[in-house]
């Protein structure tokens, strides 16, 4: 719009003057354009701002300017090539020209724009081209012309603030009917897997019992790894359970999930090396075993040897729900653990006879057991329980070096442990040992030819026997000391044949030094120590339904420091 000078005045820049009769001055005559042109300019501002002009609203120009509607435009171009049309059209780009562009396509690289005055680049405030995704579809880009290019002033990268994007993750329901396999068919189909691919699957049909795989839209089985796993145990039973909705993340080789933390059904795992057993208990650290779950760990036939771990065990067992775990060895074909003492050679309690018996018994035991832990000449234990519940150890033979190694133990219960059909032979110190406050239960377990004691309990520990035997050990068959206690077959309805045997040991059958030993249905005889059943230093020994050769102190008598023996008949 041009300036409109008073009517009849040639000077295009002449001012308007008022008329004054007192001095006989004529006022300026306004031409029609002086009224029309400003009104049209203002009405254009209002209408181009998307507002309908109204005589009842005299703030419409302000409202139009505030709305910035004239700078808003919708992209009609293609990917990376923005095209917008403004009203009124732009004839030339000027410094500071702002545009608010609704982008139609997500960019995949550098971007240009034509806003009516030619195509120019869109760049970041630092002058670099946009990267893929910087302009998301249906996002609003705020662009300002700097004389050469349009700068994207709401860029969310290094020059801007964080961007929140609400993205729907692909989801489908598992259609597999095979255990340990997840079949995920997405619509639209996922046609390729690349590192970083992420999706969710609702497990519908099966729970895994061992290593699980996923097949995505027929692209082939990929292994499923649980966060926190290790190489030997990438996936544990119950990691994927019916009804779970799991997020799967692909790393280029395998899918990772945050697995279900519970084992809810009976599962069986197989180990054949010490490393596998150790890694399994490590991996189990992320699992709980519910009341409906149980875990059986089957150890293959073979020898399991040191080195010892930090707890000085070949294998340390630890799990909060260890009482729902069975660690089971393998027996030779058709064989079972020794049922009682009668299958052992027991010819005498002196070193020569014990040595001869030991050789026969080793051969006898190796003909039965196929899973054998072999200790070396260093202190340590074959299997040590650290808690939390009482783990079940079954059908395992521990062989020691058959000479003295102080501090060497076959089965070490520093927390509760339940041994079934296990045997310790030739261990350097003690075959089975319970340390306070652990509770070690031994069902049909045997200790033979150990370099000191067959079974031991100390420091408030408790040792229970159901049958079993201890024979040919260099010192006591059983030693209960320093506040510990032991019992055996606590019932009225057995026979001696079914009970515990502690015979032919170099020391006593049972020694209670400051401990309490109460035996039922036990046979203690032919031991080389001061007595078959011996109490010392406030120790207490008691028996019912037993067959005991010699006893000290005498039944019903009090020995040194209140040590006593009680015969319940």
């Amino acid at each position, binding site marked *: 719009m041009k300036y409109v000078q008073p009517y009849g005045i040639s000077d295009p820049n002449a001012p308007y003057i008022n008329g004054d009769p007192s001095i006989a001055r004529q006022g300026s005559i306004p031409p029609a354009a002086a009224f029309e042109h400003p009104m049209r300019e203002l009405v254009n501002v209002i209408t181009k701002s998307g507002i309908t002009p109204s005589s009842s609203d005299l703030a419409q120009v302000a409202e139009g300017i505030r709305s910035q509607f004239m700078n808003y435009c919708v992209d009609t171009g293609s990917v990376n090539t923005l095209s917008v049309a403004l009203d009124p059209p732009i004839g030339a780009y000027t410094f500071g020209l702002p545009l608010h562009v609704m982008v139609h396509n997500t960019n995949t690289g550098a971007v240009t724009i034509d806003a009516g005055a030619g195509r120019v680049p869109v760049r970041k405030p630092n002058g670099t081209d946009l990267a893929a995704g910087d302009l998301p579809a249906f996002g609003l880009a705020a662009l300002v012309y700097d004389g050469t290019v349009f700068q994207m002033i709401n860029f969310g990268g290094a020059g801007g603030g964080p961007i929140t994007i609400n993205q729907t993750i692909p989801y489908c329901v598992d259609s597999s009917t095979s255990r340990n396999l997840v079949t995920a068919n997405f619509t639209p189909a996922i046609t390729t897997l690349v590192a970083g691919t992420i999706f969710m699957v609702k497990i519908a049909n099966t729970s895994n019992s061992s290593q699980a795989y996923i097949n995505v839209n027929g692209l082939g089985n990929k292994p499923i790894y649980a966060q926190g796993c290790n190489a030997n145990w990438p996936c544990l039973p119950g990691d994927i359970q019916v009804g779970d909705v799991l997020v799967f993340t692909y790393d280029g080789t395998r899918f990772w999930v945050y697995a279900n933390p519970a084992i809810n059904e009976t599962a069986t795992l197989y180990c054949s090396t010490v490393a596998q057993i150790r890694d399994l208990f490590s991996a189990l650290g992320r699992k709980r075993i519910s009341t409906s779950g149980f875990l059986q760990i089957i150890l293959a036939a073979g020898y399991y040897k040191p080195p010892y771990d930090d707890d000085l065990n070949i294998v340390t067992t630890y799990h909060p729900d260890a009482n729902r775990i069975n660690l089971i060895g393998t027996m030779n074909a058709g064989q079972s653990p020794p049922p009682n003492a009668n299958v052992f050679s027991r010819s005498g309690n002196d070193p020569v006879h014990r040595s001869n018996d030991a050789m026969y018994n080793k051969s006898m035991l190796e003909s039965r057991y196929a899973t054998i832990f072999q200790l070396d000449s260093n202190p340590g234990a074959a299997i040590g329980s650290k808690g939390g519940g009482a783990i079940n150890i079954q059908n395992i033979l521990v062989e020691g070096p058959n000479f003295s190694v102080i501090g060497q133990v076959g089965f070490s219960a520093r927390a509760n442990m339940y041994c079934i059909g296990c045997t310790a032979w030739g261990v350097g110190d003690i075959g089975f040992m319970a340390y306070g406050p652990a509770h070690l239960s031994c069902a049909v377990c045997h200790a033979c030819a150990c370099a000191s004691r067959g079974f031991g309990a100390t420091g408030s520990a408790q040792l229970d026997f159901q049958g079993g035997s201890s024979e040919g050990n260099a010192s006591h068959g059983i030693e209960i000391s320093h506040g510990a206690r032991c019992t055996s077959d606590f019932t009225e309805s057995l026979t001696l044949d079914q009970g515990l045997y502690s015979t032919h040991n170099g020391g006593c059958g049972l020694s209670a030094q400051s401990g309490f030993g109460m035996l039922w249905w036990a046979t203690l005889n032919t031991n080389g*120590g001061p007595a078959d059943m011996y109490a010392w*230093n406030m120790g207490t020994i008691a028996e019912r339904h037993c067959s005991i050769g010699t006893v000290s102190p005498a039944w019903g*008598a009090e020995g040194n420091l209140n040590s006593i023996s009680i015969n319940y008949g």
Partner: protein
Amino acid sequence: MSQNYQVFIRSTDVGAANPVVVGMYPETRPVDNDTHAATSIYMLPIEAIVQPTDATGYVPTLVDNWQSMIIASSMGAMHVEANFALSAQVESLRETVEAMMKYGTDVTKWPPDVRTKKNTVDEKWKYVDAVKETMRTKAGSHELASSKSWPTPPKQ
């Protein structure tokens, strides 16, 4: 104050340096000599006992030179008690006094049966004297560990 114990060791271990303690009872507790078969009994102070360790095979044993620690007076009393109990001693004194009051101090005039009984008791008193002499002369000696060092008891 040291506590003394009646210690039973295997008779075959009497000459051993560190015999295993088969049984051990407080000095004042009555314990039959045959409580543990094939054993010998000694009165020893607690210091004569070695607590069980791996070196002792996890059983208590006696210290080196344990024989020199045998308490001679208690051992003597034990021998006397076993052969001429205190109650028998008092009874013999009562019977002797009664015989003297009844038959006079000349023993040759006592009836034969009373005189025979007096001779039997005299043998026991001689045994007591002999035990006392052994206690006095062999206190602190290893010989006390051997039953041969003690007087032969009179026939009962």
